[in-house]
Each structure stands twice: as structure tokens, then as C-alpha cells.
């Protein structure tokens, strides 16, 4: 049975920087979404310069992956005036599609380019009639709001003929996308142009009793758990969903690599076998829990999200199981790996190298050498060290440590 026996959705991963793009693609993402310096919803992300976009697109193409550029901010007029030059540039370098949420942006892109247009979740396309409208206006694909179930997504696909993309993993807003302006008024930061201050994650105090103002209740009532859909993959496949999207352009290499790998491995298995009847599903779920996350929920993928989808606690990193210790940045096969240290570790620590394919490889940090050939007992972040070569190690592999 060849690898492409069973149709599976593409795994679409976030790439907040050129480095994260490479990590996501190498770990199995079929497509990545990136932002330029302007027009996207993550002003605080590294975002891509023009040269980085060129390099990123070329890298992705070399690995048979696609690049979609986000233009999903609700643009004001002066932003829109600057858009045409950027659109022409990204079309020329071979970007596969743009992700838009604003009709002014959509019509501008359509007028000046032949780029495929994907409608962002920011536009809150939630039903068949809305999808029909956006198809008439020029969208080729709709990225459905996270309130839509996979079954509803399948119906939208069948009745419109549009490509359908749905989120399968990552942080979630409580609000309908595009329908939250809290930080606009409380912080002077436009949440729909990339300045969201995550006001939903704070603790709120409620007056519960009109007569007794002292009776208050504290709750993180607007904070959502993180979406996780490994077990819902069969539904995505059955409904013919075209793309499963991972949220997280602001998140780390460890996140981008781990999550891309899990969903890519799972879908590769299905593509080969036509089912998920494998003990590996437990392994995939374990892997997904090794990265920093809030409690997981399947939110509205099957049924409308209920009270159990609320993350009613303060965020902290206390429950992280693993941490990244570094990225392999150069490999001398048979000899050594050069690792950029992101978090300190000690000689003798048990580490794991996450290969692009296959299970994590546990190894002990035996001999640690600095670039100057000085032996080290404890590494320092933002330095380079050499570790003995691990079979199969490659540039951009993630090395992690259990806490």
C-alpha cells in the first residue's frame, strides 16, 4: 500500500519566524502560515522580512510544503494603501495563498493578483450561507470559526464546494473571532490589528448579589482551555476537511515542531493504513502533553463547547513536563552535533532528541564540550556546545529534557 492510499487533510502549522518555518516543515507540516512585517494579527511576533519570505518559500517548496501569508488584520485605509506592493511581491516569489478577513483586502488582492484567497477565521464564517457568500466574493477556502463542529464543517464543504480548513490544536479565544475589542478600550491596543492584550486570561471579580455588594466571586471565566483534536482526526477525515490548522505563531520551536510532528505522524499512519488502530495514538497524545499548554479540550469539534472548556485558573508554567534545551544547528555525522543552548542542563542529564520521523531518542548528556573544546559540567543559555553525534540527528532537531 503506498503512502498516498488514503486521503488525509494537510497539516497546516504556524511559522512565527523563519526558524520556526523550517522546524515545522521538517517535522512534517504540509503547509505553514506566516506573517509579513505588516497586515497580520501578531504584531509582537518576529514576522518575516522580504528576504526571509523568499528563503522561507524556497525552503518550503524544496520540502513539498506550501506557504500561506496572513493579511488577516482588519485594515484601516492607510494600511490598505500599502498592501498592493506587498501582494505583488509575495505572488512573484511563489506564495501559494493569502489569508484575509476583510472584504476590502479580499477585493484588493483579487484585483491585482491571481493568488488563492483563504478566508480567515477572523471573519467568523460559521455556516453554509456565509460560505456561499464568501465563495461568490472570491474565496477558494474558508477557515471556519472555532465554534463550528467538524460535522458542520463537512456540510459546508459538501454544499459549497469550497476547501474547508479547521483548527485542530492550540490556544483559543472565547469570543467569536473578530468580535472582541476589549484591549482596544482597556489598553488602547487594537485587538483586530495584532495588538490583543489577552484580556480574557485575567481574573474577574463578580458582584453576585445586588443587595450585598460584598458578595463577590472570582473567576477566570473568559479563559478557554487549549484545543486538542488528536482523537477527533477520524471525523476530520470522514468529513473531507481539507486542512487541519495548528494555532501558535507566537509559540516556540518546541511547540511548532512537536505539534506538527504529532499530527503529521498520525495522518501519515492513517494515509498508509486507513485507520488509527495503533497504540501510537497513546504516544501521540503523550507527546502533545509534553509541551507547555493549558488543560486540553475538544471545544466545539463534536458538540458545542460547554463549561468544561473553561480554563478557570491562573496561567503558570508549573505543570510543564518538558522543556527545550536547544536546537541542533550543525551536524558532523559520526562526530558531533552543535547545539544552541536555550535552557541550561547538566552533564549526566537525560535528554531526548526529537527526530523528524520516528520516536524521540533518549540519551545521556555525557561529554559536553564548548566550541573551544573546553569540557563543561553545566551549559549556559545562548551558547553553543557540542554533544556526541546521535544517529539520525539533523540540523533543526529539537533536544528536550524532562523536568
Amino acid at each position, binding site marked *: 500500500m503506498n503512502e498516498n492510499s488514503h486521503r488525509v487533510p494537510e497539516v497546516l502549522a504556524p511559522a512565527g519566524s523563519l526558524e520556526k518555518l523550517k522546524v515545522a516543515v521538517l517535522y512534517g507540516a504540509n503547509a505553514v502560515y506566516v506573517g509579513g*512585517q505588516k497586515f497580520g494579527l501578531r*504584531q509582537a*511576533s518576529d514576522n518575516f*522580512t*522580504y*528576504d526571509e519570505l523568499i528563503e522561507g518559500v524556497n525552503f518550503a517548496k524544496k520540502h513539498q510544503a506550501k506557504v500561506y501569508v496572513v493579511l488577516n488584520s482588519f485594515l*484601516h485605509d492607510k494600511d*490598505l494603501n500599502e498592501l498592493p506592493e506587498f501582494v505583488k511581491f509575495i505572488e512573484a516569489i511563489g506564495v501559494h495563498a493569502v489569508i484575509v478577513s*476583510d*472584504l*476590502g*483586502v479580499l*477585493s484588493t488582492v483579487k484585483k491585482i493578483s491571481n493568488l488563492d484567497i483563504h478566508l480567515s477565521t477572523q471573519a*467568523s464564517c*460559521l*455556516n*453554509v*450561507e*456565509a*460560505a*456561499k*457568500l*464568501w465563495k*461568490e466574493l472570491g474565496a477558494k477556502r474558508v477557515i471556519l*470559526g472555532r*465554534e*463550528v463542529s467538524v460535522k458542520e464543517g463537512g456540510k*459546508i464543504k459538501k454544499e459549497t464546494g469550497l476547501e474547508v480548513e479547521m483548527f485542530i490544536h492550540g490556544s483559543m479565544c*472565547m469570543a*467569536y473571532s473578530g*468580535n472582541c*475589542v*476589549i484591549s*482596544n478600550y*482597556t*489598553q488602547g491596543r487594537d485587538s483586530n490589528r495584532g*495588538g490583543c492584550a489577552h*484580556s*480574557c486570561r*485575567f*481574573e*474577574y*471579580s463578580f*458582584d*453576585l448579589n445586588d443587595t450585598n455588594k460584598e458578595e463577590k466571586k472570582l473567576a477566570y*471565566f473568559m479563559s478557554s482551555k487549549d484545543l486538542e483534536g488528536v482523537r477527533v482526526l477520524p471525523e476530520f477525515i470522514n468529513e473531507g476537511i481539507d486542512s487541519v490548522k495548528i494555532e501558535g505563531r507566537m509559540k516556540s520551536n518546541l511547540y511548532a515542531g512537536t505539534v506538527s510532528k504529532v499530527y503529521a505522524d498520525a495522518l501519515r499512519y492513517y494515509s498508509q493504513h486507513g485507520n488509527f488502530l495503533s497504540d501510537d495514538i497513546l504516544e501521540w497524545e503523550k507527546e502533545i502533553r509534553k509541551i507547555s499548554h493549558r488543560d486540553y479540550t475538544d471545544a*466545539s469539534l463534536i458538540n*458545542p*463547547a*460547554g463549561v468544561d*472548556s*473553561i480554563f478557570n485558573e491562573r496561567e503558570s508554567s508549573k505543570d510543564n513536563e518538558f522543556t527545550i534545551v536547544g536546537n541542533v*544547528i*550543525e551536524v558532523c555525522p559520526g562526530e558531533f552535533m552543535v547545539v*544552541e543552548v536555550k535552557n541550561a542542563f547538566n552533564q549526566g542529564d537525560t535528554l531526548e532528541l526529537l527526530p523528524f520521523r520516528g520516536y524521540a531518542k533518549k540519551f545521556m548528556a555525557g561529554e559536553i564540550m564548548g*566550541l*573551544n573544546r573546553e569540557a563543561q559540567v553545566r551549559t549556559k543559555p545562548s*551558547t*553553543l556546545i*557540542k554533544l556526541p553525534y546521535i544517529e539520525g540527528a539533523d540540523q533543526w532537531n529539537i533536544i528536550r529534557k524532562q523536568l
Partner: protein
Amino acid sequence: MKLVSFIEQLPDLATLQKSGVEEVILSGQDFSRYGKIKTEDLNNWANEVSKLGMKPILEWDILMTENVFAQTVQELKKVDLDLFSSIRVQDPGAIHYVMTQFPQKKLQLVLETGNHNLQGILDWATYAAGKLDRVILSIELPYETLKIYLAALREKNIKTELLGLGRILLFYTPRSLLAPVVFDHDDDKKKTMIEIESLERLASSEESPHKGFPILETKHGTFMFHIKEHCLITQIPKLIEMQLDYLRIDLRFGKPIILIENVANIVSNYHEEAALTFKNNYPTDTLVGFFNINKTDTLFTKLKNQKLQRQDQNYLGDVYEISKDKHIAFMNRSNQPITPEMKLKIINPEGKELLTTISWLKNSKLELSKSIPQNELAVISYVGKVAARSQVYLA
């Protein structure tokens, strides 16, 4: 400039009529975010509005997943749309549905979410051409922008509306967020919630110094409002000057309907003192919001260190390691090989530019090298004040 308003009880119609209100928006429980009118009563209410010479508008502003949409259109069948002058829609699905199923009906397009560029608004108007009653614009648009937009829209005979007085919606989710807090998972109380049309409490965030954001839950979800209400009553001369067609006055949520008379008087015969008195006596604190200026993007430059932003021209790579007095190691990211004698400019995270010439060049094995290709480490002599993640450029 004409007035548009809401009623929550039929006797209020007399007050609206007396005040010269042109249109009455009817918010049904099954179609409106905060609607209180039962679906089976909508036809009757529409008739009552018409009898008094005003135009009844059916509000359909909820956002709907596919399953909810299917249920909602079943309820819509109970409404005689011929009794309504226009249908006010926000979900693109509702827009498409009304245009295709009821092509003779006029639409009022709610463009208050996003739609902050003229191109987009014109595109919506083009899409709904022939069926468009008006566009309802966002309150995030400042005065100078609104002037331009209204002039452009007027040229195309597109009528416009703006919120003049009423709550500012900050957040809308379909999820039930308030009931779990209030009722604390008590089964008996949960049963009561089913019978309650809506639930409202005040909430204060640890983030903001503001206290008391109204949180409302209805069958359509949970809504958070600003503690202050939007009020453009003191800006009426500007609104008239820019030829705004309709001003929406929303006195729901416990405001006395009699206030519409004051508003109507101020609109028809503006006096600044009367406007200020109205504003100061209004039951809730108010703000003009972004009407004067919208600077919600000016803080973006502070969200990241601009000095760490890579410049494309002559870029070679990023510094990974500094070993004081010994070496600097950087990754060659360019397609140009690094060679000895190259003149480099290194920009550190504080923005300081440091110039150096490569006196010796080594690879990651610390072997002298004549050339380091792309994606390999280049090790050169130490340069003071360089830090990790400094950027290396060809000088």
C-alpha cells in the same frame, strides 16, 4: 438626520412617535443578541409600529453556526417579513440568505465589526446593490474618517447609520460563561436558568482599573460591555454637518424611554448646554470613544524590540555565541560564503553598530577555513559589546 431606536414594551411606542423617531428596531428573542420579544409577537409589534407611522425593522444580528442557522430560519418562517420595512443583518450567512430567499426585502448591513476601510464598505454596498437600505458603520471610525466615508457613500446614494447613544459591546461569545459563575454548578439553579431569559452581573478585571463591566448572558451567548456608554449627543452638529442619515439611540438595559424626547429635541434644535446637561445627567457615565481619534495601533512599535528587527540588505546571519576575548560564532544565513578579510557590521540588541574585519575564520571544528557556506557556523575573532542574537551584515 433621522432617529432610529428600540422598544422593549409596546407602550413605549407612543414616546418614540412623539419624539419623531423614524424607525423602530424590533429585537426578537430568536434573532437578536439581546432580544426580548417573543417570535410569535413580532408580527403584532410590527403592525403596532406601522400604525403609528414609524417603520418597523427586524433585527437579525446573531452569529450562527450551521446548526443554529438551520433552527433560526425555521423560526423566521413564523415572521411575516412583509410587515417589516427592512431586515437588519450582521452574519454574512444571514445576508446571503435574505438576499437569495427574499430578494425583494431591503437590507440594513451591520458593518460595525471590522470594516475599517472604505474599500470594504463600498464592496459590501456593491454586493448588496439593489437591496441595500443602508450601512451601519463602526464606532471605531474617527470623525475625520467618517467625513470622508460619508461623502463617498453619499455619492453612491448609500445611506449611513451610526450609534449615537448606547452600550459598547466589547466581547461576544456563543458560550455560556456567566451562568456557571452565578449558579456554581448547582443543578436546581441550572434548571432555573433555562427559564431565565437573560442574566446580568457586573465584573471587574484585575487587568483594568475600570470596575464594573456589565456581563450579559442570553440564549445566544455571553456579552461583555464597556462600563461607560457611547454618547455622541455633544457631537450632533458634526454628525449633521457630515450628513449622517440615521442616528441610533439605544435606551435598552434599563434606561428610561423618556430620554428619547430629550435627544430628539437636541437633534432638532442643538444647544451645547442642553447636550452637556443631557450627558451629565445620563444614568451611566459616557464616552465618545474613538470619535475624535483612533490611535489603537500606535503602541505596536513597543510590542517588540525594533533593534532586533532584521534588515534584509547585506544581512549575513545571527550571532549564536560570544566567548570573551576568544571568539564570536554566527550562523551564515546568506547564500554568500563568509571569507577571511570580509568587512562586517554587527548590530547588537541595543542597536549599537560594531565594525570589524575578519582576521581569521574557522569552522565549527575550529579549523581554519577559507570559506564558510550557507547554513554553517562561522567562528571569528572576538568583538567587544556583541551579544547573542546580534545581527551580522556585510559592511
